[in-house]
């Protein structure tokens, strides 16, 4: 069944109403009529087709190498199918290398961002120290700054410390994630203090409290945040473009876009795009429940 249960005890900036249970028969009243159901299915399907069409076209056209695309013939999936474009793109291009780089970029960043922002968010949420408000608001202010303003100085800095064309040079600057800190703070603020007090009284060290109590409680927000940070890094384009010089360091987005300038046929480009998109699509299909629950449940709606 679908996840219609309201989110559990998530801290939001406004109080959340939890619907009280009602008797079953009154649910019926709100359900649409037979006709209503059919109408709903029709226009949802229409919207679904429009949303999905680009992906469909991508896959089908990638299987029709060397052809001039004609409508509607080229969109029929079972005519003239060949995997030649995939062979070409997988053997002639460094797609697997790009895939590896993107995985490293995304996974390492996720772990690091989650850890660092949880640490900082916890401190902002539960601790008192001088300059806290100023620091926190300056974090927030950085969200407003368009990335491109900082791009050139960031590159010059990375080049100066020898980070160009390296994994750590790629990853490190992206770990400064203000939204992550903000979300962690929001979430942790909603956690009851007694748990920490009790552990403190028992003599547990602060870091231990963080690891053993705070982090486990944050699982829902960590899952959601992790997914979004992962996605953001997977699809990141401009920064990997600037920091990676050699083909070996390209991420998928940079690599696929470099195909555009190589005058490759359309089907090869699309094959490359399909290969680049496939991993997250599968990951999404598996993890979609968490994504959906996460977006709906953790007060990202503010």
């Amino acid at each position, binding site marked *: 069944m679908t996840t219609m249960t309201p989110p559990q005890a998530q801290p939001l900036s406004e109080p959340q109403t939890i619907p009280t249970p009602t008797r079953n028969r009154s649910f019926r009243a709100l359900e649409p009529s037979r006709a209503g159901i059919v109408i709903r299915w029709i226009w949802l399907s229409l919207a679904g087709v429009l949303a999905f069409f680009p992906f469909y076209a991508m896959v089908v056209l990638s299987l029709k190498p060397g052809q001039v695309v004609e409508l509607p013939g080229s969109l029929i999936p079972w005519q003239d199918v060949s995997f030649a474009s995939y062979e070409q793109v997988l053997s002639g291009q460094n797609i697997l290398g790009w895939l590896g780089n993107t995985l490293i970029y995304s996974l390492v960043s996720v772990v690091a961002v989650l850890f660092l922002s949880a640490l900082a968010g916890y401190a902002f949420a539960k601790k008192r120290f001088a300059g806290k408000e100023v620091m926190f608001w300056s974090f927030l202010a950085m969200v407003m700054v368009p990335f491109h303003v900082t791009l050139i100085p960031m590159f*010059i800095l990375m080049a100066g410390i020898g980070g160009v064309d390296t994994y750590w040079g790629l990853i490190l600057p992206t770990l400064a994630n203000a939204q992550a800190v903000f979300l962690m703070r929001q979430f942790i603020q909603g956690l009851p203090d007694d748990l920490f007090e009790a552990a403190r009284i028992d003599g547990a060290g602060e870091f231990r409290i963080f690891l053993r109590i705070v982090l486990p409680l944050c699982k829902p927000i960590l899952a959601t945040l992790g997914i979004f940070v992962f996605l953001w890094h997977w699809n990141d384009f401009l920064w990997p473009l600037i920091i990676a010089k050699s083909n070996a360091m390209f991420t998928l987005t940079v690599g696929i876009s470099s195909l555009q300038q190589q005058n490759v046929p359309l089907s090869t480009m699309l094959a490359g795009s399909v290969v680049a998109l496939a991993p997250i699509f599968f990951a999404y299909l598996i993890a979609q429940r968490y994504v959906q629950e996460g977006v709906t449940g953790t007060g990202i709606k503010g």
Partner: protein
Amino acid sequence: MRVSKFTALAAGAAAIALLAGCSAGSGGGGASSGEQKVTVWLYPVIADEATHKQFWDDTIAAFEKDHKDITVDYEIFPWANRDEALQTAIAAGKGPDLVYLIPDQLAAYQKSIQPLNDLLSKDRQDELLPNVKKSATIDGDLLGAPILTSALPLLCNAAAFEQAGVTEYPKTWDDVREIAPKFTEKGLYVLNYPASPEMTLNMTYYPLLWQAGGQVFTKDGDVGFDSDEGEAALSFITDLAKDGALDPEALTTTVPLEQTAVAQGKVGCTWNNAVPEVEPFWGAENVKVLPPLTGKESVAYGTVGSLSVLKASKAQDAAAQFAEYATSADVVKPYLLASGFFSALSDTEPLYADDPLLGEVEKYVPDTTVGELDTSSRALMGVLAPEIQASLLGQKSPADALKDAATAAAPLLNK
């Protein structure tokens, strides 16, 4: 807010970090004494990566054998975004010693390139084709060791001409105007004119400008296209667009080659495609190599690829030596044959004597031009191309488009 010692610490860390970044200029190869290391950045001139790498491995091995104190490392970067990659690297002091550049880049990076007047042997400098040497020289400085050239005369599709019922290939602009309606009648296009923003004007508008007797830049460094000649060139192509003689899609969008009208045999002639590009689609028997069109003059564009030594290089001599070696006639021959380009040197035999098509194109090499070079060449294209599009799409008169482009170019030229 009182400044806590924490904030002071953080500020200090930031200052150090930024200073470290700003003093990046001193970064770079600390080679052991006596031994010089040369880094070369290249691009996929030869499309097949394996062949390309093989050539450079062999060339470097032979060079290093004769020069025991020099090691050469090369890296092949994709064409995509090469300027971003290169100029950010140069700005951060992490550029290569030697890099492959085309004339517009020579102009753009002029301040960062070491002139080769003293680093390249006199013999070699005399060996260069005159037009090639001119293309690589700015303000009297030879900014690169030319390794290849191209030539883009007129290529016409015999099959398309047959379909249109036209028997004579065009020589002048008037010829084109005359035969255009015949192509349009049959649902074909008389010329190929891609005008999307990333298409370089060198291959599209500038040849027309030069054929009309005009220039991109005047001798004083002002824009030269907002002249009568410029207007004549733009009007020529705009009128064709208005009459439906050009593929409207090509005027605005870049699509993969096999999807374009020219690949599908729907276009009569082109001066912006190379023989290897169209031959697979038209069939070798249909490719006709012809002299460039004549407005007032007959002019074709031909690029020059050079290996340039950067000023920041710590091994300039070694880099220049390698450049001279790699671009010498015997060494570079397999490179040219594999890539379909032509020799930049004047005393070599024709490379493509056996190839009827490329052999024909080769004859035009000594007459091609890259036009006038200026530091702001690329920026200028950026403001001129959209105005040309506006004219082609019928939104402005050619005269107005060129005038607006000249106005927009004013701040670019003041640098």
